[in-house]
């Protein structure tokens, strides 16, 4: 591990090369670079998640902490680690002060693994427009998390307006367990869905996306109803009415299990543990292609159409937070 105080981007690149040589294990096949944008307060949390994800998906981790954008003198501190507390791969933790924080890409670009996909993850409130953050512009895959926002419904609408293929949101990842359970229940059912209900936290983006997904896939009205739910969870139950006079109900029993009643088979209980941030991130890194079903669910949840038809790449749009503060 080497720590560089008040340094430059080139010094960081050199330190990384030196560490790789000293380590003796020069990684030849890096699958991807994961850029993590995080606030100082959440660094420990993000590091823990990155460590878990990096242990399943070897990658180069670049943690960018932007601090004191209004500091008069720009400054870069960096820490280069290989096979340390951030998992088996290579990791660089960078703290950027002053105006440098607005030009983080100037340090990050030379550190990206050559010709390997880049994933950018904002562990914090997502930027309103991804193109405003240069760290999101060069990424093939962009992971936001609307659960950070005080008004997630508005957050999802913003994401839908800004959506391009390759965007994804951790609140969508949180629905995977529910979606797998629902799909499994439908595997052995015949009959058409007439409508249904998602019971849970109406303010949770996950509950909203799940509702959107069901609506889009089943082509039937699905409402989201406020209901008591086990602590730490967002969805208490999902009920689907079928034209065969059946009602399939999946109900969360606790933070680990869900009961299935009214399906084709006998009533059962399935495991549906609430997953850690690291596991969610791990799922995101498994596939690097665009997630169209997310686009579909996001469109259905927010009422924005034409998400599937969007294409192209983002170009960086300069936006100075200082100007807004002055205005």
């Amino acid at each position: 591990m080497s720590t560089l105080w008040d340094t430059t981007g080139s010094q960081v690149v050199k330190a990384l090369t030196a560490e790789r040589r000293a380590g003796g294990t020069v990684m030849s096949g890096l699958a991807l670079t994961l850029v993590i944008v995080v606030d100082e307060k959440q660094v420990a949390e993000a590091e823990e998640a990155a460590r878990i994800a990096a242990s399943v998906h070897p990658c180069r981790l670049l943690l960018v902490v932007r601090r004191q954008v209004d500091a008069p003198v720009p400054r870069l501190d960096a820490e280069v680690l290989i096979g340390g507390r951030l998992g088996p791969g290579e990791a660089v933790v960078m703290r950027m002060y002053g105006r440098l924080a607005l030009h983080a890409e100037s340090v990050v670009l030379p550190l990206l693994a050559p010709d390997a996909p880049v994933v950018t993850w904002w562990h914090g409130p997502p930027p309103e427009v991804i193109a405003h953050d240069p760290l999101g512009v060069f990424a093939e895959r962009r992971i936001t998390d609307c659960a950070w926002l005080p008004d997630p419904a508005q957050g999802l609408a913003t994401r839908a307006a800004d959506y391009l293929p390759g965007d994804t949101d951790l609140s969508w990842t949180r629905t995977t367990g529910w979606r797998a359970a629902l799909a499994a229940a439908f595997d052995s059912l015949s009959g058409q869905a007439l409508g249904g209900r998602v019971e849970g936290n109406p303010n949770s983006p996950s509950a909203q996306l799940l509702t959107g997904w069901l609506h889009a896939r089943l082509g039937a009205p699905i409402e989201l109803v406020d209901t008591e739910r086990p602590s730490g969870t967002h969805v208490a139950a999902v009920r689907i009415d079928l034209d065969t006079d059946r009602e399939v109900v999946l109900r969360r029993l606790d933070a680990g299990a869900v009961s299935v009643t009214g399906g084709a088979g006998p009533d059962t209980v399935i495991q549906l543990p609430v997953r850690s941030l690291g596991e969610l991130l791990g799922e995101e890194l498994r596939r690097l292609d665009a997630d169209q079903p997310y686009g579909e669910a996001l469109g259905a949840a927010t009422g924005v159409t034409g998400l599937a038809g969007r294409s192209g790449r983002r170009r960086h749009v300069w936006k100075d937070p200082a100007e807004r503060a002055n205005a």
Partner: protein
Amino acid sequence: MSDPLIIEPPRPNPLRDPRDRRLPRVPEPCALVVFGITGDLARKKLLPAVYDLHSRGLLPTDFVLVGFARRDWSDGDFEDMAREAARTGARTPWREELWSRLAGNIRFVPGSFDDDNAFDELSRVLDEMRDSHGIKGNAAFYLSIPPSAFPVVLKQLQRTGMADNGKSGGWRRVVVEKPFGTDLESSRELNDLVDDVFTAEDVFRIDHYLGKETVQNILALRFANQLFEPVWNSHYVDSVQITMAEDVGIGSRAGFYDQTGAARDVLQNHVLQLLALVGMEEPVEFTPDAIRTEKIKVLRAITLPADLGSYAIRGQYTQGWLAGERVLGYRQEKDVPEPSQTETYAAVTLDIETRRWAGVPFYLRTGKRLPRRVTEISILFKKAPHLPFSKTDTEELGHNQLVIRVQPDEGVTLKFGSKVPGSQMEVRDVAMDFLYGETFTEASPEAYERLLLDVLLGDAMLFPLNEEVEASWDVIDPLEEHWSGQAPYRYRAGEWGPGEAEQMLARDGRVWRRP
């Protein structure tokens, strides 16, 4: 009026979207019936694989595991044994609450294979679970039993109607482990018997090598890239070496092994399957049928050299040192008859008579008590027709090579010449490496995990057809005939086979690659 036996074409599940790759492929509700559940394979591989599938969320919610063996056990005794086996062998972290969910759906049916009552009971249990456990008549029968017991078990399945798709109202599949017979004739008999009881597409022959990621990657490497296929033929390829080496001896399998030998045990199935994947033409589409068609074609095109004495070598290990320990010779192993002529090593040169491969020798070798456990396929390319460098510059330049490391260190290596830094022109071989562990993404599942899941999903891609098995025996039978009555060459445990195998390549001006 609708006939209850005619199953309506299933409506596609609206919640399943092929683009939605976060959701796992989960089989329909079903039962897995294992005969010989107390055996080694079942305990070491099958039960852990069932737990691992369950813990990865890949088993249907309505899943029942039924064990059948001659033990005086209750469901509880069986569950204890299964739990212990799964816990010891599981790849994924052990979670008691996960197991307890599975344990609720475990049944045991005691009985011997000739006991009609026991099979009637099994049939009744399956019928009963159709409703009580929602398995809808779907069941896979895993025959983890010696081949000698196949006929009686299959007859029982036929007699009770358990093998009948129509009668059970769901699918009924059977899983058969190697050895698929001991020669062409016996394998035909076995195939006839199995196909008689089950429909041909419901028979899954497990060759666990095909469940390995690296083996499946051969097809991706060849047919998803532009780089390799153009040179994948006799114009560019000098020879192909396939090695499957084991460092272990025969363990406690003397009874089986002495009857079988390395050629029947390994060459006939694993190694020839690897050869088929390397040598096959491009399938017209990536479907089980299309791939098997091409594999059968290449297996049928294999010819043996005329001079078998020089190009089919077998060996038997003698006492020696391996990994710092003194190990016994084959004949001194427990239960091996003293004058045994069984081979523990086989090396053979094969030709493939197709336009693509004519003139390219395929050197195959397999053996026990070799220096290390390794399986790899090495494609050696021809040397450049002309080298503008002086002879001394390229002394250390060998063949360009593409090596597919099946296990361990799963990955692919490309070897080519490169200039040694310095003022002189000197070219030496260097390697470019792709390592699964380094680059990927998901931990590779155990072969049995993948194959078991495919059986339950009904995906036959990774299972050899009986025509493939028969074509393989067609290659092995003449070898066995040639070898019968001859004493195998000796090699010391811990060396790379008998010297005659080295000579086999030396005769062609080649050497074995040290894996």
